[in-house]
């Protein structure tokens, strides 16, 4: 079957990308030497980075797919509902209050969840969620929170500047593997939940009323999926900050390649986005080594031409 073949190819590509990401870096280590004791630290650090790249790639792109289909809006992305500015705001507040670094992820997570709750309750009227209100509330809350961030930074000066930059540009360098494990659990479960509703997403992407006529409980499924994507995004933000592009463009790339059927689209996108992120991360740390270029910059520089080529070709592969 065509679908299984593409999954296999993507999986092999991912393996290749992982091997390259393990051996290349500021120091190049031959594959055979990787397991030696003296290389243990580098090996572990690189492994955590690869894990983070895979989680960010698959988590954000699947969230993007779900939100774009539910809202039938090509501009929808995981940060649409205000999660990024919410997380940024509480992180900046935490820095100003002198909260210990250990609690920063928690602060960011709470901020992301808080902003989604606000956006959601603003959009909720008459017992149903209107797509337009949801998008507009998300935009408004993002703008409002971002202004407060700038306001706080101008008042409290340099103290929060570095921290804020970290949140805005994101980084895949993870030190806390326990936190990473927790995030991995949320992301993997979240992706499974989205995949569980793959068939419903197909119908909902053709219109909510259309889906209802096919026996789909659209209102409840929308709620579940918005909550799921919010949890995925908030968890990822609190370990990696905000990493743009993946959640917005990779779903569109994969729709062009694999078609809009979610049963095929979600698994292929998971793998493709993982390959993409591992590869981009490899470039970000080796291209101008020892200087590391922010991952968000690389994803955009590599992703844009790839996207344009796919768009111009305009055919499913």
């Amino acid at each position, binding site marked *: 079957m065509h679908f299984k073949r593409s999954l296999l190819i993507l999986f092999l590509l991912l393996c290749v990308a992982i091997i390259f990401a393990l051996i290349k870096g500021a120091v190049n280590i031959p594959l055979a030497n990787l397991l030696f004791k003296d290389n243990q630290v580098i090996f572990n650090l690189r492994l955590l980075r690869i894990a983070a790249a895979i989680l960010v790639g698959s988590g954000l792109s699947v969230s993007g797919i779900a939100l774009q289909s539910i809202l039938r809006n090509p501009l929808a992305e995981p940060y649409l509902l205000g999660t990024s500015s919410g997380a940024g705001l509480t992180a900046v507040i935490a820095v100003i209050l002198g909260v210990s670094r250990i609690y920063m992820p928690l602060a960011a997570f709470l901020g992301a969840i808080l902003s989604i709750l606000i956006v959601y309750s603003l959009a909720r009227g008459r017992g149903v969620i209107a797509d337009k209100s949801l998008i507009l509330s998300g935009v408004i809350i993002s703008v409002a929170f971002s202004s407060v961030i700038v306001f706080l930074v101008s008042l409290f000066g340099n103290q929060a500047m570095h921290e804020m930059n970290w949140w805005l540009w994101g980084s895949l360098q993870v030190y806390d593997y326990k936190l990473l494990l927790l995030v991995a659990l949320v992301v993997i479960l979240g992706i499974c939940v989205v995949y569980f509703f793959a*068939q419903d997403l197909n119908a909902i992407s053709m*219109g909510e009323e259309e889906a209802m006529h096919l026996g789909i409980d659209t209102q409840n499924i929308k709620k579940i999926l918005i909550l799921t994507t919010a949890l995925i995004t908030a968890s990822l933000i609190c370990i990696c900050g905000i990493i743009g592009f993946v959640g917005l463009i990779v779903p569109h790339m994969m729709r062009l390649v694999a*078609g809009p059927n979610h049963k095929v689209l979600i698994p292929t996108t998971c793998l493709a986005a993982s390959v993409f992120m591992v590869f981009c991360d490899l470039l970000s740390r080796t291209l101008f080594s020892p200087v590391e270029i922010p991952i968000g910059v690389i994803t955009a520089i590599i992703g844009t031409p790839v996207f344009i080529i796919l768009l111009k070709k305009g055919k499913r592969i």
Partner: protein
Amino acid sequence: MSVLLRINNLRGGYYKEDVIRGLSLNVNQGDFLVIIGPNGSGKTTLLRLATRVLNIKNGEVLYKDENILEMELKEFCRKVAFVSQDIATGFSFTVMELVLMGRIPYLKRLQFETKRDIEIAQEKLALTDALSLKDKRIDELSAGERQRVVIARALAQEPELLFLDEPTSHLDIGHQIQTLDLLKKLNRQNNLTIVMILHDLNLASAYSNRIALLDNGIIFKEGSPDEVLTYENIESVYKTIVLVNNNPLTGKPNVVLVPGDR
């Protein structure tokens, strides 16, 4: 003749306003029932209430004597299908993928369509004369082609009752006739009961066995085309002057519009 759908004293509509205000109507097995009425009279709202898209405020809708709200949603969608005026084409599914969505009420979660589902989809595409389109993307189709594909999807639900909301509104006269001929054929040969909203009174007259004329959320008059399409009924509901004669070919009533400024 057995009653398939029984609508009793139905009330409902949108947030503040009941658009349907105590409406009763029976749909018989094998009917080709056309709903007509002015804009805002509640035609689409009636269909939305009867297909569980909107909440019923009062009264009930019975499908073969079972309250539709008590039926399992997917079970209901295996019996009753709906064709809307037009579909969203933002995501470019292929025609085959779209028609296979009609099998969703039969599929378990995470289940891929079986060979049987694909056969049914192909069969329905052939029935609507759209099999040659099966690998095309839906955003590449003309309005007429899209309508045939959407009808094929509804048929893939293998319904006993098919609702259609102005299926001819985006079509030229040739495609209007083609679509309605197809529906008439399905109605006769496949014993599919059809309830359809139409604006064109002459198409309603030519194809239906029963017409329901809606006004202000209730049935103003219901019966055969001859009984409903009289100039008194039309003038008092549509507030416009018409001339009613007979179509020389079919013998059915033929409504001639009368311009105000002659």
